[in-house]
C-alpha cells in the first residue's frame, strides 16, 4: 500500500494543467464564499469602494483642471507695445520675424488705429481724436507662446522686451501661477489621501480575512497536517482579497463616473459664463484600468499579509 519510503515519491505530479485547474477552482470557490455571507461581503466592498472613491475623484478633478489650463493656453500671451517711432511697415516686419520663431504659436499685429478700435469696442467708450489731437495708443503685437509654463513665458517676455522697436512687454502670469499652485496643492492632497485610503483598504480587507481565517482555523491546521503547502492554503484567501479589491474598485469608478455626470451640466454652464467651451471629461480608460488593477492588488496584498501572519502562527514549519 505505501507509496514509498521517501517523501519525494509520494506526490503525483499534476503539472501546469493541474495548477491552472486548481486556480480556476479556487477562484470559483472564493466567489461562492462571497455569496455565502452576502451582507458582510457587501459591507466590505462598500467600505473599499467608498475609501477609493475620494482619492480617485480628486485625481479625475485634477485631470480636468489640467485640461482647463490647457484650454486657456490661448491666453498665455505676451503683449508687445511697440515704440512710438516705429512705422507700420516696420511693425509688420517685426511681426513676421517673430512669427518665424519656434517658441511662438501665433501672433496678431494691431496697428495704432486697430488698437484704438479694439479699445473702443471692448470698453464701449468712443474716443474723440479731435479732442486728443492724436491717437495715444501704440501699435501692439500679441504673441501667443507655444509653452504655457509660467517660467518659460516669463523668459520669453524678457527676451522680447529687449528687441529693437519694442517699448514694453507685458505678461500677466498671476492667474496662471495661482492656478498651477492650486493644482499642485491638489496633486499633493490626492497623494496623501491616496496613501491614507490605501491603508484603510488594507486594514478593511485584513480585518475581514482575519475573521474568516479564525473561522477556518481547524481546516487550515488539517490541511497543513495532510501536506498542504502555505501557498495552497493562502490561495483561496488571495482570491478573496482579489475579489474584494476588484469589486470595491468597480464601485469606486462607478461612483466617480456618476459624480462627473452629475456635475457635468453645472460646470458647462459655469464655463459658458466665462466664454469657455470647457467640458468635464469622464475618466480616461487608462485611469479606469489603473484604478481596478490597483484596488485588486491592494486586496491581494492585504490577503497575503493576513494569511501569511496566520500561517506563521500556525503549526510549526
Amino acid at each position, binding site marked *: *500500500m*505505501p*507509496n*514509498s*519510503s*521517501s*517523501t*519525494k515519491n*509520494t*506526490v*503525483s*505530479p*499534476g*503539472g501546469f494543467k*493541474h*495548477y491552472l*485547474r*486548481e486556480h480556476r477552482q479556487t477562484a470559483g470557490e472564493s466567489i461562492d464564499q462571497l455569496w455565502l455571507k452576502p451582507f458582510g461581503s457587501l459591507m466590505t466592498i462598500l467600505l473599499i469602494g467608498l475609501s477609493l472613491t475620494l482619492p480617485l475623484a480628486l485625481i479625475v478633478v485634477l485631470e480636468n483642471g489640467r485640461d482647463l489650463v490647457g484650454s486657456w493656453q490661448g491666453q498665455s500671451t505676451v503683449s508687445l507695445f511697440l515704440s512710438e517711432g516705429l512705422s507700420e511697415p516696420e511693425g509688420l516686419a517685426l511681426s513676421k520675424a517673430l512669427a518665424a520663431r519656434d517658441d511662438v504659436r501665433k501672433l496678431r499685429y494691431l496697428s495704432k488705429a486697430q488698437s484704438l478700435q479694439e479699445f473702443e469696442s471692448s470698453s464701449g467708450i468712443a474716443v474723440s481724436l479731435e479732442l486728443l489731437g492724436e491717437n495715444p495708443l501704440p501699435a501692439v503685437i500679441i504673441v501667443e507662446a507655444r509653452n504655457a509654463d509660467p517660467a518659460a513665458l516669463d523668459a520669453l517676455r524678457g527676451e522680447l522686451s529687449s528687441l529693437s522697436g519694442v517699448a514694453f512687454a507685458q505678461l500677466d502670469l498671476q492667474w496662471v501661477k495661482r492656478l498651477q499652485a492650486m493644482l499642485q496643492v491638489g496633486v499633493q492632497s490626492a497623494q496623501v489621501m491616496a496613501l491614507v485610503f490605501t491603508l484603510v483598504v488594507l486594514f478593511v480587507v485584513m480585518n475581514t480575512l482575519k475573521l474568516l481565517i479564525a473561522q477556518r482555523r*481547524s*481546516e487550515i491546521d*488539517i*490541511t*497543513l*497536517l*495532510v*501536506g*498542504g*503547502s*502555505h501557498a*495552497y492554503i493562502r490561495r483561496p484567501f488571495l482570491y478573496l482579497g482579489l475579489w474584494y479589491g476588484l469589486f470595491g474598485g468597480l464601485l469606486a469608478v462607478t461612483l466617480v463616473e456618476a459624480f462627473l455626470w452629475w456635475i457635468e451640466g453645472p460646470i458647462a454652464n459655469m464655463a459658458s459664463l466665462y466664454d469657455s467651451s470647457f467640458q468635464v471629461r469622464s475618466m480616461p480608460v487608462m485611469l479606469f484600468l489603473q484604478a481596478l488593477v490597483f484596488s485588486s492588488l491592494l486586496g491581494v496584498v492585504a490577503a497575503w499579509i493576513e494569511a501569511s501572519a496566520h500561517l506563521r502562527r500556525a*503549526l*510549526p*514549519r
Partner: protein
Amino acid sequence: MIEFDHVSKHYGRGQDALRDISFELERGGLTFLIGHSGAGKSTLLRMIMPTEHPSKGKVVVNGHDLKSLSGRKLPQYRRSLGVVFQDHQLLADRTVFDNVALPLRVSGFSHRDMGRRVRAALDKVGLLGKERAMPGMLSAGERQRVGVARAVVNRPSVILADEPTGNLDPALSGEIMDLFEQFSQMGACVLIASHDLALVARYQHRLLSLDRGCLLSGGDA
C-alpha cells in the same frame, strides 16, 4: 523508518513531556504506544508529524531529520504520513468525498485519479456509497472510518493514530484495528497511541510503554 534518538521534550516551569526516548520502528509493522493520560503519547506522535520539535535528541523518519526539514520540504514529508485523530477532525462543511480527497488535492492529483483513490479508500473502510454524505449525517464509527480513509488515501508509508478508538464501542474499535492491521501487512509502518489496554491485549504486536515521559518498555536503547 522511524527513529527516536535520545529525544527529550521540556516545556516551561520544569515540565518534562518526554525523557530520553530512543527506539526504532521498521516498515510493515504495527506498534502500540500505550500509557495513561499525560504519559507523553500525543507529544511523541506530534514529534513525528512534526508539529513539535524535541528539546534534545533527534527524530528521523524515512531518512529525514525532522528538525532540519526546510519549509518547502515539510509539506512533501507530511504527504508521506497518514494521521488519524481521536475526534476524527473532519471538515463539517465538506462531503465525505471532499474530506477523503483533501490529501490528494493538496498533492496535485487529477480529478480522475482522485475519484478512483477516494472510492478505493472508502471501499476499504466500508463506506462506499456515502461519498456525498456530510459528516454530520454519519454515526461516530462512520466518521472515524472516514478519518481512516483520509489517512490512507494517499498510500502513506507511515500511519499515526492518536486514540483512534477512544469514542467507539468495542465492536467498532475492533473493526478499526483490523483495518490498521491490514495497512501494516501492506507495508505501512503503523503507530497507534492508545490507553485501552484491553483492546491492545487482543493484538499481538510490539508495545511501546510510556509513563510520565519515560519509555518503560519496547525501546531499543
